[in-house]
């Protein structure tokens, strides 16, 4: 049985890469080299790969001489032949496609292709946790919450945050998930509260802006705010009272506003002085949580030259901010109302049991037995006991505890796939419930819904036709937006684009809001492909996109009336590359803060679109200078030619740079430009084979040759779906998926191909 193992150290980077490509394999005694393969090695390989000076330190001379090789050597050869990237492309005498395929097949016949299996236990990542909670308890429980504040960002492996091996569970993460569970429970279930008065004195007010506090009054001397914080238990009506006065000067009377969390809710004149202060009142709705109620001084006045010293300075003084409430009936949150219906009448414990029974299947993604519901209810009752150990706490605290307990439960936090029966050789089919879970986390980043659970419950889902039917249904469900929001953004490297910082001087228009729009533009295009409205190739050369008015202005598009959601569908103007190639998201993500980066763009095309990542540069290699015209006034293009002149760099850069330079018409902020540093932009470049690329549209044409683009999409999608990297054993599936996708062009069918594969529907026992 091949076992994942620590790989052997090679000599030099080529050997290291080859070794890294080996994946799971075990050192075994040498195996005989099949005759056909031996001839091929002899003809095509050993001229360079022989003896002490073998290229890349990879010696095949002895293999041919002895007719036998170690398994991992054959795997390394297989990897190269499968990619058809050895012998190098500039070699005149290369094997035919059929010869390559035959050689790979010959190796597979003697050495089991390396394979990987995902660990049986993995935790929900942040995005999955979020969506699972939302779907189980209702969207309200997460309304207005920033995931960043509750849970730490997940580590990324194999390019995705779904990779099981990188989803570690150190104590910090366990603690954060417990804490988040409690916060969700507090939002899902409110405790009955009585109206109360919170008075915040001058000394406790938080100040932004200058001023002093002297006993009775907190002063604002040059604008700014004084704020009181309050923990609001229930969303309801509250009354805010501000004791306020002013020192008058200048033509106007002092003015102030009341703000809730920075949002202005009321504005008042304050003609009163401190000898006869005013009370300003505002009533309105406050949401549950930490609220900040502030007073802002709106019209500072300062004229030191005024002859009357009393007329020189206008200031505002706050004596207190009082928050009283809640008033009127406090509406229960939707989850609590639903829970009350499920619960019916009776003792608290029995009622909790019925709630656990009602939501257990959705939360735990498997049937919940009566005794499981009972155990949860018992835990919840114990958890909500008063200090003296009595059960007196009542329904709401117990329901809260039940929600917390279920969200901390390992059956919620962890996805556990059952082990194969002992002694299973090869793969064993996954049970229907596990399959449902894989399916929903792949397509929705969330738990199975009632329909999918029903298909799992009667084992219908084990039937291929039923899987296809579910895929069709699920991709049209709004929850499938997760494929755009979680898969595509990581595949294309634009996740959290709004946290990127471009240089404000060079690109003053770019702010987080604009970056978020750019990301959404790409997500919208992907979503249409996901739903089958557009073919897969629309990502590469489609001529339509969706933009907001601001984005349209930024790109310089003609105005188009947006739909109700603020987005308009537009045809791309002539000359702008299609698909995602000229999306602002991609152009920003492949740039440096102060300039475009042709190298990053070339690398991105190779990596994301063709899955042919170049090896990274050797150490000691300087990057390009930032100021484009320093270094004796050389242009970026010239500088890049310099490093391509170095043979160590040229190996990869000829291709990477040519592709990246073809994007030069598109600036780091996604706009079209006609000049670079005062010179007319050139976006023609020469590929290694001497062909000329004219602009980014030509890149799309090169990428679109054959089915390399489909294979890249398929492989990234498979990694995202399975939560593991791919290995040689996945090649056959990927090749088939890519070929088919090139023909039918349908994303839903590509997904069907993945979820009906044995990689998706079964697992192998891990050593």
């Amino acid at each position, binding site marked *: 049985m091949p076992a994942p193992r620590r790989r052997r150290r090679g000599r030099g980077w080529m050997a290291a890469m080859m070794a890294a490509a080996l994946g799971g394999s075990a050192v075994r005694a040498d195996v005989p080299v099949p005759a056909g393969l031996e001839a091929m090695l002899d003809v095509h390989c050993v001229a360079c790969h022989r003896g002490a000076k073998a290229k890349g330190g990879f010696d095949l001379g002895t293999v041919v001489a002895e007719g036998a090789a170690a398994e991992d050597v054959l795997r390394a050869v297989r990897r190269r032949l499968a990619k058809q990237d050895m012998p190098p492309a500039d070699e005149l005498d290369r094997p035919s496609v059929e010869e390559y395929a035959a050689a790979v097949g010959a190796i597979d016949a003697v050495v089991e292709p390396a394979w990987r299996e995902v660990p049986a236990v993995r935790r929900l990542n942040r995005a999955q946790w979020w969506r699972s909670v939302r779907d189980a308890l209702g969207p309200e429980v997460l309304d207005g919450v920033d995931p960043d504040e509750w849970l730490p960002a997940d580590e990324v492996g194999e390019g995705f945050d779904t990779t099981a091996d990188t989803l*570690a569970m150190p104590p910090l993460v366990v603690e954060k998930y417990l804490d988040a569970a409690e916060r969700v429970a507090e939002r899902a279930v409110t405790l009955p509260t009585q109206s109360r008065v919170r008075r915040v004195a001058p000394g406790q007010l938080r100040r932004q802006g200058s001023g002093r506090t002297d006993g009775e009054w907190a002063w604002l001397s040059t604008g700014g705010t004084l704020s009181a914080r309050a923990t609001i238990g229930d969303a309801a009506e509250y009354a805010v009272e501000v004791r306020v006065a002013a020192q008058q000067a200048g033509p106007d009377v002092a003015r102030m506003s009341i703000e809730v969390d920075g949002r202005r809710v009321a504005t008042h004149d304050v003609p009163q002085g401190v000898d006869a202060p005013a009370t300003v009142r505002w009533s309105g709705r406050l949401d549950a949580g930490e609220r900040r109620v502030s007073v802002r001084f709106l019209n500072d006045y300062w004229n030191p030259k005024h002859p009357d010293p009393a007329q020189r300075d206008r200031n505002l003084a706050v004596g207190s901010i009082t928050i009283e409430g809640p008033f009127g009936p406090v509406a229960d949150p939707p989850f609590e109302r639903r829970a009350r219906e499920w619960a019916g009448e009776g003792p608290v414990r029995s009622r909790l049991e019925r709630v656990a029974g009602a939501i257990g299947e959705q939360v735990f993604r498997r049937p919940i037995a009566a005794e499981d519901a009972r155990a949860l209810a018992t835990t919840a009752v114990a958890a909500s006991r008063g200090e003296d150990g009595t059960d007196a706490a009542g329904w709401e605290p117990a329901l809260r505890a039940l929600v917390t307990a279920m969200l901390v*439960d390992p059956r919620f936090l962890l996805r556990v796939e059952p082990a194969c029966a002992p002694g299973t050789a090869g793969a064993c089919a996954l049970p229907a419930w596990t399959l449902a879970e894989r399916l929903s986390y792949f397509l929705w980043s969330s738990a199975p819904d009632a329909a999918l659970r029903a298909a799992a419950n009667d084992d219908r889902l084990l039937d291929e036709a039923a899987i296809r039917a579910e895929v069709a249904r699920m991709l049209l469900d709004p929850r499938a937006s997760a494929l755009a929001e979680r898969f595509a953004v990581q595949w294309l490297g634009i996740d959290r684009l709004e946290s990127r910082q471009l240089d404000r001087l060079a690109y003053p228009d770019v702010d987080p809001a604009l970056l978020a729009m750019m990301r959404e533009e790409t997500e919208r295009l992907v979503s249409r492909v996901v739903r089958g409205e557009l073919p897969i190739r629309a990502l590469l050369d489609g001529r339509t996109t969706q933009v907001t008015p601001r984005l349209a202005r930024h790109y310089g598009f003609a105005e188009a009336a947006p739909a109700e959601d603020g987005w308009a569908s537009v045809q791309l103007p002539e000359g702008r590359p299609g698909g995602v190639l000229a999306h602002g998201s991609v152009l920003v993500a492949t740039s440096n803060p102060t300039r475009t980066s042709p190298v990053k763009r070339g690398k991105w095309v190779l990596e994301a679109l063709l899955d042919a990542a170049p090896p990274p540069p050797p150490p000691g290699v300087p990057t390009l200078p930032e100021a484009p015209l320093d270094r004796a006034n050389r242009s970026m293009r010239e500088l890049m030619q310099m490093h391509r002149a170095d043979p160590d760099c040229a190996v990869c850069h000829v291709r990477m740079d040519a592709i990246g330079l073809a994007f030069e018409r598109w600036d780091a902020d996604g706009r079209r430009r006609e000049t670079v540093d005062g010179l007319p932009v050139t976006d023609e470049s020469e590929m290694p084979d001497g062909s000329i690329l004219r602009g980014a549209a030509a890149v799309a044409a090169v990428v679109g040759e054959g089915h390399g683009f489909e294979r890249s999409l398929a492989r990234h999608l498979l990694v995202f779906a399975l939560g593991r990297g791919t290995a040689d054993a996945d090649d056959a599936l990927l090749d088939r998926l890519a070929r088919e996708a090139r023909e039918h062009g349908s994303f839903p069918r590509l997904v069907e191909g993945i979820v009906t594969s044995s990689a998706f529907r079964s697992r192998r026992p891990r050593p």
Partner: protein
Amino acid sequence: MRTPLIDRRTVLRGIGASIALPWMDAMAPRGTALGRRASAAGMAAGAAGAAPRRVAYVFIPNGVNVDAWNPASAADGPWQAVGALEPLAAHRDRITIHRGLAHANAAALGDGPGDHARSAACFLTGAHPRKTAGDDIRAGRSVDQEIADTLAKQGASTRLRSIELGAEPAMTSGNCDSGYSCAYSANISWKADHLPNGKETDPGAAFDRLFGRRGETPEQAAARARSRRSILDGAVEQAGRLAATVGRSDRARLEEYLDGVRELERRIDADRAVLADPGTRLPDFEGAPRSVAERIDLLGEVLALGFRTDSTRVATLMLANEGSNRPYPEIGVGQGHHDVSHHGGDRAKMEAFAAINRFHVERLAAFLRALERGTEEGRPLLDSTLVLFGGAITDGNRHNHEDLPVLVAGGRAHGVAGGRVVRSAPGTPLCNLHVSIARSMGVPMERFGDSTGTVELG
């Protein structure tokens, strides 16, 4: 008996006027949980006859501009506060510069490029990380975790065994460095060789972890602690049942889950006395930090407060992730950090790189000031806290790992004299210093990583 109070005005005086720290307003008035816990811890330590010692590892990525870093320690005799180290002038006699220390395991050793990922992973583990984009990540257990666990075994009952902080969240897409998982670049603290600890990047959330949730009344906090106990008991039981359904090799994640749950249960016990105290009012904390400097300095303030109240004794703080390409507009550097670190001799880039080095050193100075303001039996907290500051790449432009930029601050109680340069033979493992520091924390440690002995702390 220690004085448990932090004089609020003393704290505020030291903080730059540009940085608002509203939560300090409510800092630990006498009779609060915070004050009481500190006092109880102080008494416990006092009974044992020794003040607790603390250690903080502060990490900088991307190496340094050696032309700006090295002049301070170039000459014989005391080091000079010049170049990138100039902001440390006020602390000159509290700091020892180490020269000649190296991390051989951060080098390629046949694995090709990826120095950034390797350096972060190697910095505190001394291990050569396994090259993988995701499957089966592995480095080594880090020295901070060795120390934290030993202190716990020796009976230290701090709220947290250790705390892991950082000023830049984990990266969320792609390979972070040449085929290495992002987990390597974004973590220096490793609980086990396959388990990076993650880190808290939000000062407010870090504060909550150390001192309990802001805005919660003592009654609420006590009720939550009681509730947690029952809920965690239930979770442990379920995890046990799940473990029976998976193969042995797949139980690791479940074990991690259980470890985390047990750690939380332990903490509930430690907190019980404190939370049952009527009149407890935890400090408040407002708003998100507005600049990188503010975020780092707030993390430092929270950490100093954590040490001060004996809530933890071991900490790591990453000023940025390894390979970080974040610009620093607040000091006029619009280009990315990684970009300028590969300056290739370009003068403007070298200056920008040195400015970032200096900026990070200024953050260290701010942290040291926070440690000075906190006092314990009339002595500054800085005396009982040793800070190791540095990184595992030397020259950002060359990616070498010899003569690393490393200095040790504070730690008078640990035996750090300060003011001098300790020159080790070229190539001496940084792990030798790790061993020396661990021993100075009272941890009996023979060897660590590739250590060959010890290094004088200085």
